[in-house]
């Protein structure tokens, strides 16, 4: 029997994802890949494998999975309740899943995008250099209930039972922004208002971008200039026709004609993508030199990630703490029957 993961049940937007396909903007294909790329790196770290390995992205809700052979798994991104044969699992951690066991992953308790990684990775054939579905471009289909996805060979002696402490990026919060090609077209008063306003993540959002709402007036460029379509990148904040901002994510179009008030720093993009509907987001402009310093610091932390792993404690008396850890950001921990 081939080594595979059986998807017994999956949410409607479940897909295979990796770090996407950078380098194809000239051909009209945006990078795509996991909405929360840090979660891909965390999963690779937990399983001690390459960052290019593909995982399963679950949007808002998990699913029911079974492996045809003993495999290692890791769970990262938006925390979701998870069980193997009814026994609760810590999130942001690696575990063993024996052949035939039932892995059940519930709805997200914070954030939007959760990830299920497997030792050896999801071994779909690469299309244009990567395995991730690019839904807007029609590359690969979504993972439907009842499908079976091939799992690659795992490194011999691979360990499981590790946990990774992560900062809460699943409940909105501050996003740092750099000025871009059209920032200066917005009057200073609007830039100031944009930096001071509290935005709410609108329910309308997907892997291409998320719309934001706010109570103040609309934002607009001086004289309502129309911009000729030019290259847009993930993190760009477009001000659409009705004056509301849309944050572009990895699967955005490659060109756009709406004025952009700025671009979110790459390390804050996971926070933007993971903000669930209703979460409050704010923006703060930073100078380019500061932005570079911040990016370097974030890179350093990412490279040091594996050093921060801790061994999961198996004593059931400690499980309560692990569960409390997984239910972060104001969601009440405890009773699994709530």
């Amino acid at each position: 029997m081939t080594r595979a993961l059986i998807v017994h049940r999956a949410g409607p937007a479940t897909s295979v994802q990796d770090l996407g396909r950078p380098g194809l903007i000239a051909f009209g294909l945006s990078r795509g890949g996991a909405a929360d790329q840090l979660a891909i790196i965390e999963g690779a770290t937990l399983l001690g494998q390459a960052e290019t390995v593909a995982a399963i992205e679950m949007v808002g809700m998990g699913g029911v999975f079974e492996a045809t052979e003993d495999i290692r798994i890791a769970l990262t991104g938006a925390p979701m309740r998870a069980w193997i044969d009814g026994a609760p699992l810590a999130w942001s951690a690696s575990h063993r899943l024996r052949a035939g066991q039932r892995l059940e992953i519930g709805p997200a308790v914070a954030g939007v995008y959760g990830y299920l990684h497997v030792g050896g990775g999801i071994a779909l054939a690469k299309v244009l250099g990567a395995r991730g579905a690019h839904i807007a471009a029609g590359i690969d289909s979504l993972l439907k209930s009842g499908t079976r996805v091939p799992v690659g060979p795992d490194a011999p002696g691979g360990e499981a039972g590790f946990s990774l402490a992560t900062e809460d990026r699943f409940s909105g919060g501050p996003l740092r922004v750099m000025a871009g090609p059209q920032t200066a077209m917005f009057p200073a008063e609007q830039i100031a208002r944009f930096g001071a306003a509290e935005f709410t993540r609108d329910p309308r959002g997907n892997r291409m971008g998320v719309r934001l709402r706010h109570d103040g007036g609309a934002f607009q460029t001086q004289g309502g200039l129309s911009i000729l379509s030019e290259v847009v990148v993930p993190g760009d904040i477009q001000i659409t026709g009705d004056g509301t901002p849309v944050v572009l994510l990895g699967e955005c179009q490659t060109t756009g004609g709406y004025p952009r008030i700025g671009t979110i720093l790459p390390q804050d993009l996971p926070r933007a993508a993971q903000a669930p509907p209703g979460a409050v987001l704010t923006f703060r402009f930073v100078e380019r030199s500061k932005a570079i310093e911040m990016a370097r610091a974030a890179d350093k932390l990412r490279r040091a990630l594996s050093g921060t792993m801790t061994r999961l404690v198996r004593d059931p008396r400690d499980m309560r703490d692990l569960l409390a850890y997984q239910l972060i950001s104001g969601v009440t921990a405890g009773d699994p029957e709530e």
Partner: protein
Amino acid sequence: MSWLGLDGLLVSFTDRLNEPANRAALALRDAIERESWPGVEETAASLVSTYLRFDAAAMDGDALRARLAALVDSRDWTRADLPGGRRRWTVPAVFGTELAPQLQEAAALAGVTPEKAIAQIAATPLRVQTIGFAPGQPYLGELADHWSIPRQTQLTPRVPVGALCAAIRQMTLFSVTTPTGWRHVAQTALRLFRPDGETPFLMRPGDEVRFLPIDRGAYERLSNEGPDGGAVAEPIR
């Protein structure tokens, strides 16, 4: 020239679409590719601007920006030649019918009869100004002045792959099924994006495209013959 995000630079030649500015954007992109500067990870040209992405983890970009500025100033890019290796495409298309329901509306906005609209579009050699928005999707230009018709304020919820749509003196040939504000004037059986194919992206910036009006029967036949939909390309010398 402006930064675009932490790892990008954008050079814009104008804020109004015109042929020399498009040529400049394409030529500058070509020149950057030929320079092979270390740290440059990707380049792209859109209608009148050129984009460059670099490895921001390895470099802060200031030196690269200075290099790019020097290259931009080194010549008049609006007088540059078009990229090499261009091709002339002939693409069969059914104008109007229920396959492309907005021909009448678009023709009326342009102030011509549907028959005249078809003749004008078919007679105009269009250039691929850029590939963008969706994979392999060309922006084609330019039609004559009276085709300066606005986009619709209400989006068409869905046009199919192969739809030929018009707005603001431009045409686009859709590579994916998508909502659009452009008016759907003709339908082709050409698939421009083939993720599993040997040539995933068919057209290139600088290519020339002509549309050949065909009837519904011919379209049905071509649709069944494969992803080319009867389109042919020949090199431009």
